[in-house]
């Protein structure tokens, strides 16, 4: 058994906690600090009152709670097991290593087992915490109360056809007339089944630890998107944040940085530049820089580095410098001083529910992600399933509202469902087109490139797999473990697809996409155990 975890250095409300080093990575015990701010990554996992792997960024933690560091000894700041990071600069090869001598294998197994895993088993106090959940019935379920989902719900209410609205964030304003579940994440949307009272039966997990079953005839998915990660040496270092991570985690009360490098050349980078006025020291973009961003940066006297590779974050404990190289391969790499890197180069739609429901999806070269095939009125290829907002290709606020409204019109109007057709080949390209090809030829380093921070998978492991002839994301996932961690592949698979497409010299759709296995976010056994029985088939 692992030793009981030591107490956190600075317990308190989650706001205070998030300012410090919280945990260490599984294999190499690399320092980790909050990264995404939206409850997907594994960098803020702590043990709270005997429950492991609580995401401090999304869970209100009362000051009286017992908060413990999970994966470090004696503390997250100074962890003796970090010796593994230094002792194995090229990583530990658990796939080929530790096979001999035969008599030592049980001992190898004990050591490697102890290094794996995050938290320890919950304390006996949490025994049997089965939270009974209820069944909710509705004609229409709208998932997501952002701009698109809200517009859709409002119009449905106005048309006398009020939906049930599920929203992952707690505390958003309700939509008058619609039953709204806040702090509720749709985690599993199986394909519809005919012959039941309601064709769809979806499972949603709630912040109170229960799960509900929502039975509906029609489902509108308006779950939006998230800011992507990026692969470079030290991309798992404290100080590296996604754009929404920066927005949520760096507040005036607890600033996380004063001299950030923003990575991105478009609207999202501009938003970060405006929000953190005076705290951004440079804007680095993989491609060209949008005119509005360039204009604003020059007004603020922020230097711009267009068409530049982000090679690495330099600094042992957190970002101290950023290593860059102009694309084109002529000039040598150079460094700029910074205490943070904010990744604002691309937003990705959440595709999971569409995959689960069996809707047809396609590779969208403009965003560099998969999305559902969507037709008039937001219809997907699954009758009764609709997409609105960012997942339907409408990332801007106004477009998202319009797309939500259009779905509502289709639902209440006499517009018959018609199968959508896939968009034709697009000329547009996402920001990272060709980026990793250059990055790999220049070489990121020095230092580890952790491509899967949840399981500490390193870039050379991925490259080794392709060198050995393994092809396709499904196989690479199983070979390296990329995509199987606690973030469920959100921060590694999009990058893996781009790198593999380049390595395998074939388009991304041929590299494939891993099956989106439910649930969308980790859902407690005690919540699933409390789900009400399924609706039986109609006689």
């Amino acid at each position: 058994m692992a030793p009981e975890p030591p107490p956190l250095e600075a317990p308190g409300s989650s706001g205070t906690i998030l300012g410090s080093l919280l945990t260490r990575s599984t294999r190499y015990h690399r320092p980790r600090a909050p990264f995404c701010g939206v409850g997907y990554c594994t960098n803020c996992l702590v043990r709270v009152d005997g429950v492991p792997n609580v995401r401090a960024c999304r869970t209100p933690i009362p000051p009286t709670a017992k908060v413990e560091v999970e994966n470090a000894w004696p503390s997250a700041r100074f962890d003796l097991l970090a010796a593994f990071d230094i002792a194995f600069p090229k990583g530990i090869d658990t796939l080929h290593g530790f096979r001999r001598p035969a008599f030592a294998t049980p001992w190898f197994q004990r050591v490697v087992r102890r290094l794996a895993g995050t938290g320890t088993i919950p304390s006996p106090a949490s025994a049997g915490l089965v939270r009974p959940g209820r069944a909710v019935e509705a004609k229409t379920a709208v998932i997501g109360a952002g701009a698109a989902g809200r517009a859709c719900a409002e119009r449905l209410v106005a048309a006398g056809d009020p939906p049930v609205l599920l929203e992952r964030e707690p505390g958003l304003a309700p939509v008058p007339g619609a039953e709204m579940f806040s702090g509720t994440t749709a985690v599993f949307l199986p394909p519809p089944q005919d012959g039941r009272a309601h064709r769809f039966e979806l499972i949603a997990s709630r912040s109170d630890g229960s799960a509900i079953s929502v039975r509906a005839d029609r489902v509108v998915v308006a779950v939006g998107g998230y800011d992507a990660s990026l692969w470079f040496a030290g991309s798992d270092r404290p100080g590296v944040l996604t754009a929404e991570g920066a927005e949520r985690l760096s507040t005036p009360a607890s600033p996380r940085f004063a001299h950030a490098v923003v990575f991105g050349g478009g609207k999202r980078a501009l938003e970060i530049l405006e929000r953190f006025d005076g705290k951004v020291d440079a804007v680095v973009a993989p491609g060209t820089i949008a005119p509005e961003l360039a204009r604003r940066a020059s007004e603020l006297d922020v230097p711009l580095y267009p068409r530049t590779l982000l090679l690495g974050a330099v600094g042992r404990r957190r970002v101290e410098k950023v290593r860059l190289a102009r694309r084109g391969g002529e000039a040598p790499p150079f460094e700029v001083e910074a205490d943070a890197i904010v990744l604002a180069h691309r937003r990705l739609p959440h595709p999971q529910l569409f995959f689960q429901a069996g809707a047809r999806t396609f590779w969208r070269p403009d965003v560099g992600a998969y999305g559902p095939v969507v037709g008039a009125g937001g219809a997907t290829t699954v009758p009764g399933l609709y997409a609105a907002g960012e997942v339907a290709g409408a990332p801007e606020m106004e477009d998202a509202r319009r797309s939500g409204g259009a779905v509502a019109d289709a639902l209440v109007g006499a517009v018959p469902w018609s199968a959508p057709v896939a968009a034709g080949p697009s000329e547009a390209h996402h920001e990272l087109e060709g980026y990793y090809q250059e990055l790999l030829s220049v070489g990121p380093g020095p230092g580890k490139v952790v491509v899967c921070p949840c399981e500490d998978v390193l870039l050379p492991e991925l490259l080794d797999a392709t060198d050995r002839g393994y092809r396709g994301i499904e196989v690479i996932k199983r070979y390296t473990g990329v995509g199987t961690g606690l973030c469920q592949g959100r921060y590694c698979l999009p990058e893996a697809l781009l790198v593999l497409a380049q390595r395998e010299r074939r388009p991304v759709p041929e590299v494939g996409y891993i099956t989106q296995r439910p649930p969308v976010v980790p859902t407690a056994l005690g919540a699933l155990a409390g789900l009400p029985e399924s609706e039986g088939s109609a006689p």
Partner: protein
Amino acid sequence: MSEGRSRTPRVCIVGGGIVGLFSAYHLLRAGGGPVVVLDRGFLSAGASGRNGGGVRQQWETRVTVRLMREAVGEWRRFGREFGTNVWFRQGGYLFLAANAAERTRLRQVVEAVRAEGLDGRVLDPSQVPKFAPSLSLDGVAGGTFLRTDGTLYPFPAIWGVYEAVRALGGEVRLGVEVTGVRTQDGRVVGVQTNAGPVDAPVVVNAAGGWSSDVSRLAGLSVPNVASRHEILATEPLKPFLDPMVIRLSDGMYFSQTMRGEVVGGLTVPHPSGTRAGMPTSPDFLRAMSRSLVRLVPRLAPVGVLRAWSGFYDDTPDGFPVIGEDPRLPGFVHANGFGGHGFMLSPASSKRVAKAAMGEPTDLDPALFSPGRFLDPNRRTAPESLQPG
């Protein structure tokens, strides 16, 4: 990859799962090549990449215990032979009984196990916590334990055998789907695929859950039935559980992997056949979570990370089908392994290779031959300890 293409293969193996690959390996080692392995998916797409990684020797029939015992020896050697580490960890298998009838059944299992020279033990409820301290003893009326059973990580086994097959000159063609079995004068001459015909005097059906489909392509009716079984994995935890645990009453099983995830399954009814694909279901998530939390109440707040399903290839008597089909010379079965093809594969594939070379095996034809189902008067005790 191309070295095998110029030669006409002697054996064409349909199915690139662990059984097909391992059989190819033993064929090549014994000089039974050239061999081509065809799979319509990617490596590990089927049950070989979807199973829980259990390896057990506790069975009702001594012949199965014996074969599994051989397999355990092979798994222990695997890393040194194949170059990849499957992390075969002998943490034991703990079977749990809920009542007197189940206890009696498990006692018979231990008798078979001990008769084969293994150290199986019958446990009182009070002895269970010694092997799995986190379990609730509520509803536990006893159990059995065998220390040398264990769990492994399936993927490195696939990679290791795949690379060994290729190193021996075997050809593995992925993304190639068999669409027909070609015969001439009443014997096999090859297969038809979506990538053209493949000539081979011997065709091995190692298609797992899809084996009955492949047999049908050869015009053979077989009693194999594909059944869909689901599994889930939780967030990874530090080690707290050594053995694989199986509750006989509902067939729920779970273990903790080397990475710390609790991986386990339980069977909820689904229509048989491979039509529905391999998704998971709300019914499974609910039933499995309930069963697991009842047995390990402390796991209640632990998150489920993902759930998936795969196909067993079941036979009426619970024994696999290994050998040439008497109705179609050249057509060799290597299927019907239920949910235990992976664990048995190092042992079964040696026999498959022999059968594909036309040599006799040590397997009792009344239990393993494809022809056994054709005999209406056959009466043999089935192997019915199928869960986990």
